[in-house]
């Protein structure tokens, strides 16, 4: 319900980060997270909701291991 996309922090000034979404650079409020330059963040409505803990490819390959873990 809450469309959000992930991008990479490329610059950080206080609570505002420049985040790269495949070439589109957008300023994002990161005050609700601890991020570093190089972190991937999930962004919604102009703020970073969460740090992305593993990249998409890794996420998919881990999906079945996670499933085995819980089932």
């Amino acid at each position, binding site marked *: 319900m809450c469309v959000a996309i992930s991008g990479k922090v490329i610059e950080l000034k206080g609570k505002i980060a420049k985040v790269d979404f495949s070439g589109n650079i957008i300023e994002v409020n990161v005050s609700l997270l601890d991020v570093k330059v190089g972190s991937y963040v*999930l962004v*919604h409505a102009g703020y970073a909701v969460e740090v992305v803990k593993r990249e998409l490819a890794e996420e998919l390959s881990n999906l079945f291991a996670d499933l085995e873990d819980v089932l």
Partner: protein
Amino acid sequence: MINIEEIKRFLIEYTGPKIKLMEVCGTHTGSIVKNGIRSLLSPSIKLVSGPGCPVCVTPSNYIDLLMKYAESKKYAILTFGDLIRVPGTKASLSEAKASGGSVEIIYSPMDAVEIALNNSEKNYVLAAVGFETTIPAYALLLDKLTEMEITNVKLFTSLKTIGPALDWLCKSEPDIDGFIAPGHVASVTGTSVYNYLANKYHKPFCIAGFSAEHILVAIYDLVVQTSNARHEVHNLYRSIVSDKGNPKAMKIIEKYFEPSSVYWRGIGVIDHSGYVLRKAYMDYTIEFPSEEKAILKESNGCRCGEVIIGRIEPKECPLFGKVCTPVNPIGPCMVSHEGTCGIHYNMHE
């Protein structure tokens, strides 16, 4: 370890008791329709859509009031683009704009700061609509407004929390066997709300991402759980969702907002299912006038109320595709990118 091919085979060949699962979130609905997920399931596994489209559950008289503010010329409306074509009881904000009302589209609530500073002679009403994923953005805006003493922006809220809505659904639609829980809401709230519901109603929840693989794995998980009478909360979106969610986001929500019983379009009032501003920040809000709270039934034949609780499919609404289309939407479910009727229409026409 099981793989996607085995999961697909299991889901198409499943011959156990009939199972009805709900995907709560509109973005999941979009992915399910786009990826043709339903055609990959046995007829015994039914997927229904839920109330997770913020625009779709926003009451029609909320839109009417926004239009009144826009037309009064006293205020300019700031809104996300999604809301602008949603019909109120008579018309939408786009009509208010066409007839000279002031309506501006924003991409983030934080945009309001610059707009308000650059136009200090104007007064703005911000249409604050959304679920837990969006509410921290309004709280961050309030942080800025109070810090910079900006007084020409007021929030008109229609903020919803998904937990109480799912509680209501589990009670009133007991034939739903399990839920694909919304991933991005969970990234803010954490998983405790689903643990509470799973224990209370003995239903399984699976938190999943939005790719076809994620959704298939979530359905598999829920079918296996249901078949084995299990009712656990499984988090399969661990790149984003942790058990505790984002505590800073929850804290800033609680700083500015308090729980309130709010009206859901097509459903009615659900106890403690939303947020309003705390008393201390009343200067930053316009309240819903109490006499406006009573509208309970849509009078235009729209059946979004049944679509968003999984009782009917869009095509079961007699207006679907005939009178009601994305060009001429009768109900909110046809307007939003996350609205079930619009998603189905766009995929099949």
